[in-house]
């Protein structure tokens, strides 16, 4: 297989549902999961006589995304009608943007094998979502639910700057993370609030012209993105090498078979007959809005990642985990401030115990029963030697489930290590006098006996001896 003679060229189109409470052109709720057609009105049902009225929050969210992705915000952009017939498109046209979109010419940095690279973003525009068409497998009918009709979407189109399926996945993850950080999208591929279509072509490595591109649809997980693109690259290379041509078409990814399939009759070349939407004036951004939104942009994932590595001295691996969720990163910083100790230690607690407990309980960080001061207090107890690491884990689990003060929990469970050197010395003395034979063996050179003696002291202290103190006391008594 001479795939290596070929250069894949990939561009991605992402449709993201914006997290507004109401739809883009009417006041119906955007909440997911309602019974069919429970969130519809004359407007989003496409009844005769209805007119669209724009949701101001949609503009705000789109500008947020546009600026975070480095785009220019066009002060005037044009709404357009995209005309086609489908049961889930009630008006027989979708209100979208065509000639002049809201945002243009941005970029998104991703990490590739060859280092960081910026993938150019051609445009971001606003449009309304269509409803859902559910094919009834048994009968000869389709069922149409228009709850989703009118939910606001941003469409984010990249230039064909990606060169592998891995890069495509990186881009999508980075894009999703930003949108989630901005709180404009919930990044859910499986539920369809973050959708991706890929445009894939191949060209010979020394060629000057792009090959024919194929649009891939129905990719609803990151794993499938990789598989679908890889399959398609192989398919195209094979076609070209056997002397055939790649057809300009749309293909669906079949996750069961692991292949892409032509969409046949749906793909008579669509003539969408775009024209400016006469029911909406051009989208004019009021002066000052973009500046205000820019000021309010949160620190974005990549910047936060770099800062965490620098400021907290964390590894890229740890930093990545902490930064993946904006709320988690914020919480980390709050605890770090309250704790004041080594960030690496704190990071371990996050990447280890905290994430594990969250996952097991299936709760979100927002439902955490304790706050930064408490976790900080727990860590300080460990640093002060009051708790062994294992004991601390125990205490943490209880803290997680009850939110009670770590000190109270530790005391109640009797986990506080004895720090009192007097008590330790007394115990050591007692054990040494009770085991003269072992003392002899140790002094004679059998160092392994040390462990036995430590165990005895620990038993005598009912496990609450501070191991460091015990070790030191034993060594001192044994004359080293």
């Amino acid at each position, binding site marked *: 297989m001479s795939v290596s003679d070929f250069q894949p060229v990939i561009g991605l189109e992402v449709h993201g549902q914006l997290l507004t409470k109401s739809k883009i052109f009417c006041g119906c709720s955007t909440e997911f999961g309602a019974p069919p057609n429970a969130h519809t009105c004359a407007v989003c049902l496409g*009844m*005769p*006589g*209805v007119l669209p*009225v724009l949701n101001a929050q949609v503009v705000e969210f789109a500008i947020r995304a546009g600026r975070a992705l480095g785009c220019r915000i066009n002060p005037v952009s044009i709404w357009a009608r995209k005309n086609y017939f489908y049961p889930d498109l009630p*008006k*027989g046209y979708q209100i979208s943007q065509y000639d002049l979109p809201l945002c243009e010419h941005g970029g998104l940095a991703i990490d590739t094998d060859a280092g960081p690279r910026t993938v150019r973003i051609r445009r971001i525009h606003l449009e309304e979502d269509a409803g859902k068409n559910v094919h009834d497998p048994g009968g000869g009918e389709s069922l149409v639910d228009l709850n989703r009709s009118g939910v606001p979407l941003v469409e984010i189109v990249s230039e064909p700057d990606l060169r592998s399926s891995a890069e495509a996945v990186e881009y999508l993850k980075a894009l999703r993370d930003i949108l989630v950080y901005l709180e404009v999208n919930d990044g859910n591929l499986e539920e369809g609030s973050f959708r991706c279509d890929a445009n894939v072509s191949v060209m010979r490595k020394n060629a000057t012209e792009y090959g024919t591109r194929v649009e891939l649809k129905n990719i609803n997980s990151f794993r499938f993105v990789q598989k679908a693109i890889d399959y398609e690259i192989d398919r195209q290379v094979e076609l070209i090498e056997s002397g055939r041509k790649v057809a300009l078409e749309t293909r669906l990814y079949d996750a069961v078979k692991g292949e892409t399939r032509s969409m046949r009759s749906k793909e008579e070349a669509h003539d969408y*007959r775009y*024209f400016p939407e006469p*029911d909406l004036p051009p989208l004019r951004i009021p002066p000052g809005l973009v500046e205000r939104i820019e000021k309010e942009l949160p620190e974005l994932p990549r910047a936060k990642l770099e800062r965490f590595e620098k400021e907290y001295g964390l590894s890229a691996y740890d930093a990545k985990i902490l930064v993946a969720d904006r709320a988690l990163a914020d919480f980390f910083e709050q605890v770090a401030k309250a704790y004041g100790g080594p960030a690496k230690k704190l990071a371990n607690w996050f990447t280890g115990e905290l994430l594990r407990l969250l996952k097991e309980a299936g709760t979100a960080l927002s439902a955490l029963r304790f706050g930064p001061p408490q976790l900080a207090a727990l860590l300080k107890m460990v640093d002060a030697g009051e708790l062994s690491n294992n004991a601390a884990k125990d205490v943490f689990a209880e803290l997680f489930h009850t939110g009670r003060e770590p000190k109270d929990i530790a005391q109640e469970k009797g986990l506080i290590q004895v720090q009192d050197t007097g008590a330790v010395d007394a115990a050591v003395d007692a054990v040494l006098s009770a085991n003269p034979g072992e003392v002899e063996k140790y002094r004679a050179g059998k160092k392994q006996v040390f462990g036995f003696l430590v165990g005895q002291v620990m038993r005598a202290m009912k496990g609450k001896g501070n191991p460091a103190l015990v070790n030191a006391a034993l060594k001192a008594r044994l004359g080293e």
Partner: protein
Amino acid sequence: MDPTTLSMLELASALEARSLSSVEAVRASLDRVERLDGRVKAFLHVDRPGALAQAEASDRRRASGTPAGPLDGVPVGLKDLFLTEGLPTTAGSRILEGFIAPYDATVVKLLKAAGLPLLGKLNMDEFAMGSSTENSGYFPTRNPWNLDLSPGGSSGGSAAAVAARMAFGALGTDTGGSIRQPAALTGIVGLKPTYGRVSRFGVVAFASSLDQVGPMTRTVADCAALLQILAVPDPRDSTSNPEVAPDYRAELEGGVRGMKLGLPREYFELPGMDPEVRAAVEAATSALQKQGASLVPVSLPHTRYALATYYLIAPAEASSNLARYDGVRYGLRAFGAKNLLQMYGQTRDQGFGLEVKRRIMLGTYALSAGYYDAYYLKAQKVRTLIKRDFEEAFASVDAVLSPTSPTAAFRIGEKVSDPLAMYLNDVFTLPCNLAGLPGMSLPCGFTRAGLPIGLQILGRPWDEARVLRIGRAFEREHDFHRRAPTGVGG
């Protein structure tokens, strides 16, 4: 005394004086409908119980001294493309046969809030596409002046109902002349407001950038009073003017002394204009001159392109607006289709009449790949030139006068199979829609055969008050508007 001979405002005075009740007025209208509409065929749906209930409520309000407004209790009719909750709304089409509107259009809400009983829904050319009401999917309406003739269109039912005194006033819509032309052909007053003056929410859309709702009445003062109720900013219509409308009756009797009235050369030079129409309109302009206005020749050089411009833009927008009639969620669905594509095709083929199909085809073509620039985009640019013509003219005149229609009422069947001949009916009215200006037609004479002739007055954007004032000045000195149609018995 037969209440139906009263104008809206005269009836309002009688209601206020308690010499008449709203229930009596509604009954008188409905009696007349029963007697005449079998021949005129203006109504598609009469809402007797609804109108009477609304009239009763009006009388109760009046009795307790809290009328809802100056026209509380005055019955009107509605062109059948206004959605009226709980009532049928067909837009004159079979594709909406049986459709019961789930909400009220904004203008319907406004009329209800102002207390006007709604008599019923009036016939029209299907989806407002036509100039004769012959394109109605149900039946043609007849001209009360001569039942063999068309009342014009597309608001033919509204015009005929008002002219025949079956309703005291009515609402129509005007996209290329559909209020003004039937008003001229039936001898009543019809006004198309500036684009954006009246809400389009709940009005079945034909051409979104051209459609406007307007009053159709027997007198200019009635027109002003009805417009006042409709001219309210609507947050549900993004193209609606957010500014409050002026008082349209404040300067109504102000006369035309000192005003400059433009006579567009290109309009008066049109071949195919009926000489009697030209004579009546010229006499009308002279009359206004005698009243103190000066007549100023103006030129609107792009007039000749208005027809082509309109017939590319309107069908294009319509082809998109009518895509929702697909049999999925409401209206007609052809049954027995084997699959979705067949269902779409058969539903729309069965449900739409020929003129609607023709315009959908024309509009689809004008927007299609490869033709968009040459047709739709080009037309939108020429539209700008037509607008500029008016802007330049209005630098030197206060209003523009012309005939409303090149001919008086024509025979039913005469033009319907020649689309281009039919389209020529609107040559004088189209440019005003393209430019978004207010325009009014009012009676200014009769042909020897006794058919009404209309004078058209066009004004600057948002200058409806002046247009009404000019019309009132003319109306005051003549009695064309008082003549009753001779085609139907009293």
